């Protein structure tokens, strides 16, 4: 069961937020902005916290990727361009990687290819919403 999706731009601002379920209490829209900014900062800090240094492949360690609790699981996918996709799901949701990949593909198609979408601005693309709902709904 997928709970919600947040998309953050390079600067850490919230550009997209969508809830897919009614089973949890919602925050106010301002709270979501604060949540996004907080996560951006935490992600940056955790990127430097790793005690191991660069992995064997020579790639530097990334920031926070997964956070789990009894009630939910949060996974963060950061693209090479700095955009972050946060997906909140129930703890037992399988294949979150695949879902995030697919959401990234939808983003690349319906948001980036829309010439009237200004980069780093809030996403108001109806096609993206539609395709996202069509993809997520069958999984609920």
């Amino acid at each position, binding site marked *: 069961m997928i709970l919600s999706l947040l998309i953050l731009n390079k600067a850490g601002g919230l550009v997209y937020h969508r809830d897919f379920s009614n089973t949890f209490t919602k925050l106010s829209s301002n709270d979501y902005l604060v949540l996004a900014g907080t996560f951006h900062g935490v992600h940056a800090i955790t990127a430097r916290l790793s005690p191991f240094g*660069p992995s064997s492949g020579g790639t530097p360690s990334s920031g926070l990727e997964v956070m789990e609790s009894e009630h939910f699981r949060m996974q963060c996918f950061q693209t090479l361009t700095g955009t972050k996709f946060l997906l909140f799901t129930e703890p037992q949701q399988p294949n979150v990687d695949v879902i995030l990949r697919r959401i990234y*593909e939808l983003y*690349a198609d319906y948001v980036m290819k829309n010439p009237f979408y200004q980069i780093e601005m809030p996403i108001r693309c109806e096609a993206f919403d539609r395709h996202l709902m069509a993809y997520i709904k069958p999984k609920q």
Partner: protein
Amino acid sequence: MSATKAARMGEEVWKTRIDKVNAELVTLTYGSIVAQLCKDYEGDYLEVNKQLDKMGYNIGLRLIEDYLAKTAPQRCVNFRETAEMIARVGFKIFLNITPTVANWTSDNKQFSLVFEENPLGDFVELPDDGRAQNELWYSNLLCGVLRGALEMVQMQVDAHFVSDTLRGNETTEMRVSLVRYIDDELPQSED
């Protein structure tokens, strides 16, 4: 990623995950853009080059996400790897051509892309008003695309053509140089 692996990945993505469109449609569309720009700027070919570069830059900013979504690559370790990925995967999935990477400088910060075929320039003959042959870079959009796309992955590069078969030269060659890595905005840096 090694060059052969990159080539294989490019081929595989091209075959399976890319919608195809008629090549002549692309050629004619691009041709009408260039022809209209030449008319609008009344033969100021240097300005036309700049506009093509600007258009390409805006395309590149967005195209990079499509490239990353389709190929899901690891971050390139060095600039040499970046060049191979551009040539064998990038150009392959968007134009179905594989330019050759050549002429590296000793500090590995500059290279050339040599194009054996250029679908944008099929059937094109530059107008013979004396200046187009010396001033217009017909495929300059591609330079802008590279510039915009690489900027989104924290590399500032300069790309420009040095020769073009449409101008009567032997080859079509683009020179790409790395100006600097842009890593002040993004906290993810080498430690």
